[in-house]
C-alpha cells in the first residue's frame, strides 16, 4: 500500500477562468459556458474533442446533467464532484486520474459556484436532515479560534498577531488589486484593516474570503500528448488529498495552531513530487486563505517556514509578490473571491499563468525564470475537521 501519485504522467494544456465577483447578471450556466469556452480556446481543442468531464460544485447544482445541458454535450460522461471547499481541486484530481489510467485521452475539470442568488451573507451549507445537535457556528468563528491559540502558544501579543493578520489581508488585497479577474481590486492598508469592527472573535469581515460567483476549468491529457496541443504544458507533479475524521474536535491534545490533515497532505504531496525544501524549490503557492489565521498556519503546515515563525516571516514580507516565496499572487480567496466549487481550479489557473509567463510584468512573481514549480492548496471544513488537497505543478516534463 502506498500513495504513488502520477508524477509527470498528465499535463494541463489549457485553462479558463471567469472573473470572480457578484455576477448579478449571470447564472450558473453562463459561468460554466464562459469558463469552458476559455479552456477549449486555451488548449486549442473543440468541444467534441474532450472525452469526459468532472464537474465540481458544492451546492449550486446536482449531477452531471447540470453541465451537459448548458454545454449541450452529446453522449459524454459527466460526473458531478463535491468535497466541501476543495470541490474544484477534486474535479481536477478525478480528471487527471482518468487520463492517467488510459480510460480517456482528453478530460475537462470544471468547477463553478453561483453563491450570490441566496440573498444571504456568507456561505451557507445545504441542510441535510439531522438530529439538530450539530454546531451552528459560522466558519469565520471556527477559524477565529486559531488566532488566540497561536498567540498563546508562541508568546505573540494578541495585538501584534492582529497586525500580522492584517498584513496577510493587506498583501492579498494588494495582489488582487492588480488582477482584473479578482473580486476586490482595492488595496487596503494594515491600518485601515485594523480599524474594522470584529464579527467573529478578533476577525473582521476583511479577514474573511470574498464571497463571489465564478467558474474555472482545466483540460488535461497524457503528458506524452501534451506537445500536440501546446508548447507550454503544465505537468502534474503531485495530487494529494486527505479527509480528516473529525478527531481534532474531540481530541484534547489538539491545540488549534495547526491543521494535521494539511501536514499529512503536504508530506504526501512533497513525496510524490520529490520536493525536500518547498521554501526554496517552489516558485509560488496558491493557498486556501479562507480567513487570515488560516494563511498564517498554512505557512507552517506546508513547510514554508519553521513552527512559530510564520508571523515574523509574514511581517518581513517573505510571502509578498516580490518576496522569497510569493503566496497568493492572484489575491487569494481574500481578494480574488471564493466561489466554493471553482476556487481549487482558480488556484491552478494562476499557477498556469505565472509559470507560463502569461501575466503582465506588474503581477509577475519574484521567482519567475528561476524556479518552475507551483503549489496549490485547497481545504474544506474547519479546524479539527477538514479535507485538504494539494497539487504541485511544473513546467518541466521530468
Amino acid at each position, binding site marked *: 500500500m502506498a500513495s504513488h501519485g502520477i508524477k509527470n504522467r498528465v499535463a494541463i494544456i489549457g485553462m479558463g477562468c471567469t472573473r470572480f465577483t457578484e455576477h448579478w447578471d449571470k447564472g450558473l450556466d453562463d459561468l460554466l459556458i464562459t469558463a469552458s469556452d476559455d479552456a477549449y480556446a486555451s488548449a486549442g481543442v473543440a468541444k467534441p474533442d474532450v472525452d469526459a468531464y468532472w464537474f465540481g460544485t458544492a451546492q449550486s447544482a446536482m449531477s452531471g446533467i447540470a453541465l451537459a445541458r448548458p454545454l449541450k454535450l452529446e453522449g459524454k460522461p459527466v460526473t458531478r464532484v463535491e468535497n466541501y471547499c476543495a470541490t474544484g481541486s477534486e474535479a481536477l484530481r478525478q480528471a487527471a486520474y482518468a487520463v492517467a489510467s488510459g480510460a480517456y485521452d482528453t478530460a475537462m475539470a470544471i468547477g463553478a459556484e453561483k453563491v450570490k442568488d441566496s440573498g444571504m451573507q456568507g456561505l451557507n451549507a445545504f441542510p441535510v436532515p439531522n438530529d439538530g445537535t450539530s454546531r451552528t457556528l459560522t466558519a469565520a468563528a471556527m477559524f477565529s479560534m486559531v488566532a488566540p491559540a497561536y498567540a498563546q502558544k508562541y508568546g505573540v501579543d494578541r495585538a501584534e498577531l492582529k497586525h500580522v493578520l492584517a498584513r496577510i489581508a493587506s498583501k492579498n488585497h494588494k495582489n488582487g488589486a492588480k488582477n482584473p479577474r479578482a473580486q476586490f481590486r482595492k488595496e487596503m492598508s494594515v491600518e485601515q484593516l485594523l480599524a474594522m469592527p*470584529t464579527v467573529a*472573535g478578533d476577525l473582521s469581515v476583511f479577514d474573511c474570503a470574498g464571497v463571489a460567483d465564478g467558474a474555472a476549468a482545466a483540460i488535461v491529457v497524457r503528458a506524452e500528448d501534451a506537445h500536440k496541443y501546446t508548447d507550454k504544458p503544465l505537468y502534474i507533479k503531485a495530487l494529494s488529498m486527505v479527509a480528516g475524521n473529525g478527531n481534532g474536535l474531540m481530541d484534547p491534545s489538539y491545540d488549534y495552531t495547526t491543521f494535521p490533515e494539511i501536514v499529512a497532505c503536504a508530506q504526501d504531496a512533497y513525496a510524490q513530487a520529490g520536493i525536500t525544501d518547498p521554501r526554496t524549490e517552489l516558485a509560488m503557492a496558491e493557498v486556501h486563505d479562507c480567513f487570515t489565521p488560516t494563511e498564517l498556519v498554512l505557512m507552517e503546515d506546508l513547510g514554508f517556514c519553521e513552527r512559530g515563525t510564520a508571523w515574523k516571516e509574514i511581517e518581513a514580507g517573505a510571502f509578498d509578490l516580490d518576496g522569497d516565496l510569493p503566496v497568493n499572487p492572484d489575491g487569494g480567496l481574500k481578494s480574488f473571491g471564493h466561489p466554493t466549487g471553482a476556487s481549487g481550479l482558480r488556484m491552478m489557473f494562476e499557477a498556469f499563468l505565472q509559470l507560463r509567463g502569461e501575466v503582465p510584468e506588474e503581477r509577475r512573481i519574484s521567482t519567475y525564470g528561476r524556479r518552475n514549480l507551483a503549489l496549490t492548496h485547497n481545504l474544506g471544513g474547519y479546524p479539527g475537521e477538514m479535507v485538504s488537497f494539494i497539487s504541485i505543478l511544473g513546467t518541466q516534463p521530468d
Partner: protein
Amino acid sequence: MKGILGWGTHLPYRRLDRATIAAVAGTGGGKGTRSVASFDEDATTMGVEAARGALATSGISPSTVWFSTVAIPYLDKTNATALHAALRLGTDVGAYDALGSVKSAVGALRAGLSGTGAALVVSSDLRGGLPGSGDESNGGDAAAALVVGTEADGTLLAELIGQGVATEEFLDRWRTPGDNRSKLWEERPGETRYASLAALAWKAALGEARLEAQNIDHLVVTGTHDRANTSVARSLGAPSAAVVDSLAASVGNTGAASPAFLLASALEQASAGQVIALVVLADGVEVFVFRTTAAIADYAPRRTVAAQVATGGAVTYGKYLGWRGHLSIEPPRRPEPVRPSATASSRSRDWKFGFVGSVDDSGEVHMPPAQIDTERRAMAEALGTIVTYTIDKLSYSLNPPVVFAVVDFDGGGRLPIELTDVDAAEVQIGGRVEMTFRKLFTADGVHNYFWKARPIRGEHIGPDNTQHGEAG
C-alpha cells in the same frame, strides 16, 4: 408512610429589575426583581434541570414521571417524554403531562403521592403577561421537582401527615388557548372564595394530621391570587414567624412551579421533626401537611433555592420583551434553522436528550458517540474547562452574539459547544462550565432540544456520579 424522598429546583440565571419596566411600557413594574427564563429555556428544559438535581441528590430511580406547566411547549404530543429521555429513564417508567393550570401541578403531586413506586413530580412555569401588566411584573420563571413515595422506595425526608381539598368552580383568572396572557376578574370576589375554601381544606388537613395551627413550623401559602395568598396566610392561625418567604421580591410568583418550589425552599430551611404546611390557592384550595424526618439533615441539594436566588445576572427589559415575543427583533441575514428530523432525533435519543457519548479502544471519548465504539459514557454531569472560545456575531441566534467554546471535560472528552447564561465579556480560557439542557431553536413548531455549557456559579455539589438508568 408516604412522603418526600428528594427534591431539586431550577431558578433561571436572569433577573429583570422591575423598576426598568415603566420607562418602556409607560406603566407597570415595581420594586425588586423577577426571574426570567433564558431565550433557550422553556418549561421542559427547566423541568429537566430541576429533575436532574432531584434524582442525583436522592439517588432514586422513579417508576413514574409527572410534568406540569401552564407554559406548554407541546400540545397533542407529550412533554414529559422529553424529560424522561433527558433523564435517561427506562422504557418501563411512565411519563405523563398534567397541563394547563396551576391546579394541575397540585393534582400531579397528589397523583404521585397516591401511586405505587417512587414518582418524580416536576412542575415548571414561565409567567408573564402583556408589557406593563401585573402578571408580567409579579410573575417569575422556575421549576421544581419532587421525588415522592414510601420508605420502601427510598429514605423519607418528610412524611405526609395530612391533606385537605376544597374544590369549587369560580372565574378568577383565565386564558384562551393560544393567547399569550391571562385575563383577570377584579380581585375581591376571588379573595373571598379563597378565604372560605382555605378554611375548609385547612381544617380537614389539620384534623387528619392531628395538629393545631400553632404547631406549624413552616407555612407556604401560594397560588394564582397574590392578594389572597397574603390574606389567607394571615388567617390560618399559624405563627406569623412560620410563614415562608414567597420570594416575591427576588423571583416572583412562579405559577405552576410555585407550590413545589416554595416547598423545596421550606424543606431547605427545616430541621428534623418540624411541620411544614403547603396551602395552594388555585381554583379551590389544596393543603398538604408534612413532618420532616431525621434524614433531612443529611440531604444536601445540588443547589439550594437560596443559593440560586443569590446568583442571578441582569437581563434588560428590551431583551426580556424580545425573548418573550413581545418585541420582534431583526434576525441575522442568515438562513433560519430547519426543523430537526424526527427519525434522526429518535435514533440519537441518548446523545441528543441524554448527552451520552462513547469511548473508543484508546480511551478517547467521542461526542457525538461513534457507532463502532462499544462503550457508552454519560457526560451530562461531567464538569469541564474552557480551552478556547470565540464570539460569533454572524451566526443565526435568537440572542446574538453566540458565545462558543471548546470544552475539555474532567475525566476525558472534548466538545466545541455553545455557552449560555453568560455575558461575552466574562468568558475566559480556563473558566469552569457545567452542562445544561436547553432548546437550541424552534423550527416548524419543533423544539430542538440539546445541551449547552454554562459557567459554574456559586456552590456546586458534584459532579455526582449517581447515574440513573444505564447508558447505551
